[in-house]
């Protein structure tokens, strides 16, 4: 049979190896078919030595992907050693080696309000930043998240839900409800907090929504934690890795820099300010 190669061709019979420009190739008639065109499969019995130039060409191509793997793995090792990055993420193949995975790290956020320090339910629109912070906590990323959280408007979700519920309950059962009822104009500010154990985290108000029930927020604090596990006691504990605080003055300065009016007054300002944040808005963002 005739096996065509880029460097020329050779005629050989059956299983006998033939030499082409120093490459030893074993041919196999059963594998090739003219109908397959350039899909002909040549056998793998492929032996060195090739001529030096060809050998290096071959090895360079074969080693390209493994070298890329080594390069990324080296970078990953440096980041794990210097930046608190979890071995699970980053392409270093450190998965299933430590409890300190990004899933064992968590981010908590708090806001200073007139009612005291309240937890913030971080909106899904900021999920990527939170994930990055968990995978490789660093001061700049924590400060950045705190800044973004401080620029958002927040409200008590229980009051908004209660207002919607009371409006629906007040309607006759056979009356259809409309979308406007889902956005109550006012909520009963100062109502008691839900019992401990029920959701108490403040929810972010979507940029397009009129923030009639927004709370006045002072500083914002972002904390990064990780869990540790003691196999002898079976105890799971947490350990704080990092804290970042955003003071109210910084928040107001940012608003001034952006030439923004207080956002609660005009929803169009909110929209433009939100656009300035350059957030990776996902479809499910603010859907909660």
């Amino acid at each position: 049979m005739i096996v065509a190669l880029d460097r020329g061709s050779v005629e050989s019979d059956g299983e006998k190896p033939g030499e082409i420009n120093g490459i030893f190739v074993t041919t196999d008639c059963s594998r090739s078919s003219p109908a397959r065109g350039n899909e002909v499969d040549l056998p793998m019995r492929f032996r060195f030595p090739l001529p030096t130039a060809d050998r290096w060409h071959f090895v360079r191509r074969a080693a390209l992907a493994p070298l890329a793997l080594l390069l990324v793995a080296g970078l990953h090792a440096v980041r794990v050693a210097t930046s608190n990055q979890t071995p699970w993420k980053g392409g270093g193949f450190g998965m299933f080696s430590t409890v300190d995975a990004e899933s064992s790290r968590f981010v908590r956020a708090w806001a200073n309000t007139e009612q005291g320090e309240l937890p913030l339910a971080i909106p899904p629109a900021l999920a990527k930043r939170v994930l990055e912070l968990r995978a490789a906590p660093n001061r700049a990323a924590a400060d950045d998240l705190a800044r973004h959280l401080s620029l958002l408007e927040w409200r008590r979700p229980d009051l908004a839900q209660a207002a919607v519920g009371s409006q629906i309950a007040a309607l006759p059962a056979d009356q259809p409800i409309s979308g406007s009822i889902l956005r109550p104009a006012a909520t009963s500010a100062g109502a008691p907090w839900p019992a401990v154990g029920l959701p108490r985290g403040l929810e972010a108000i979507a940029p397009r929504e009129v923030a009639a029930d927004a709370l006045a927020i002072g500083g914002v604090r972002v904390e990064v934690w990780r869990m540790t596990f003691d196999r002898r006691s079976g105890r799971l504990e947490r350990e704080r890795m990092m804290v970042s605080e955003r003071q109210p003055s910084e928040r107001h300065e940012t608003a001034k820099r952006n030439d923004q009016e207080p956002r609660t007054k005009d929803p169009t300002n909110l929209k433009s300010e939100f656009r300035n944040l350059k957030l990776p808005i996902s479809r499910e963002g603010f859907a909660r």
Partner: protein
Amino acid sequence: MIALRRQISLRERWSALQWPKIAPLRVLPLLTLVLLLVSGPEQWYLRGPLVALVALGIGLRTWLARPQFWYVVATLLGIAVYLNWESSDNHKYLFVYWCLALCAACSLPQGEQAPALALSSRWLIGLCMALAVVWKAINPQYLDGTFFQYELLCDERLASLTTRLTGLAPAELAANRELRELLQAGHLRGLEVSSAELTTRPAIAWLAAAMTWWTIGIELVLAVLFLWPAGRDVAGPASVAWLRNAALVAFAATTYVVAPVRGFGWMLMLLGLAQCREEENRWRLVYLAMLVVIQAYTLPVSAIANWLF
């Protein structure tokens, strides 16, 4: 005597069976496209172009033999990993390297393509396993069994195994996961939890120790076998090649039944298939069968069994 004759006859029949021939350069690109369709990037801005490329590749099959096609696919996958490194699992990186290997192999003369792909695949598997071993070996939490104890008690993917082998009830494991959740997000419900005691059993420690040493052991064996110097023959010595295949199939069969990470499992099987020697057609068939087995591992077997019986 009759039994011996029957045995010989069976062996003869076995070797006389006409096994389908698998041509790696024809099968691997197509299997790669299937892999990318089921485990590719989830971001719409990357998934859209990738699905379009896959459709074009299937429609215009000659494209699958061109380096440009695999270069574009590798670039797309690389962008996906670069932009989403914080959520990209390690096998997503392996997809990029694999497509790069296909690109590099397709850029060579035809006679060198399959050997180049085999060599790249062998190095990729070897390096991947060697790195996995290094990370485990330098981590005291792994070596003393802490990691697998934690995983057995808190990882939902291992819950079924934990229940079967240690007797911990599913409800107890669910409670462990809830405790972990409270530790992480209890503050959103006004609960400041600083520590939690997980429900465990003595058998957990034994199971964790067995998993710890089996995993690092088989990964070490794979790293050594796949990075074994090839010498003059690119395919390496036949005895080492047999061990490589057996170890890789054993690894896949035991690992992915416990943690069904289909993307990683399929990728390793494709790499395994690509690195087979010319005469190892049966191992290629085994790797192909393992793709089906790994897919079967993802089935909710417990739920189906409960429903049936």
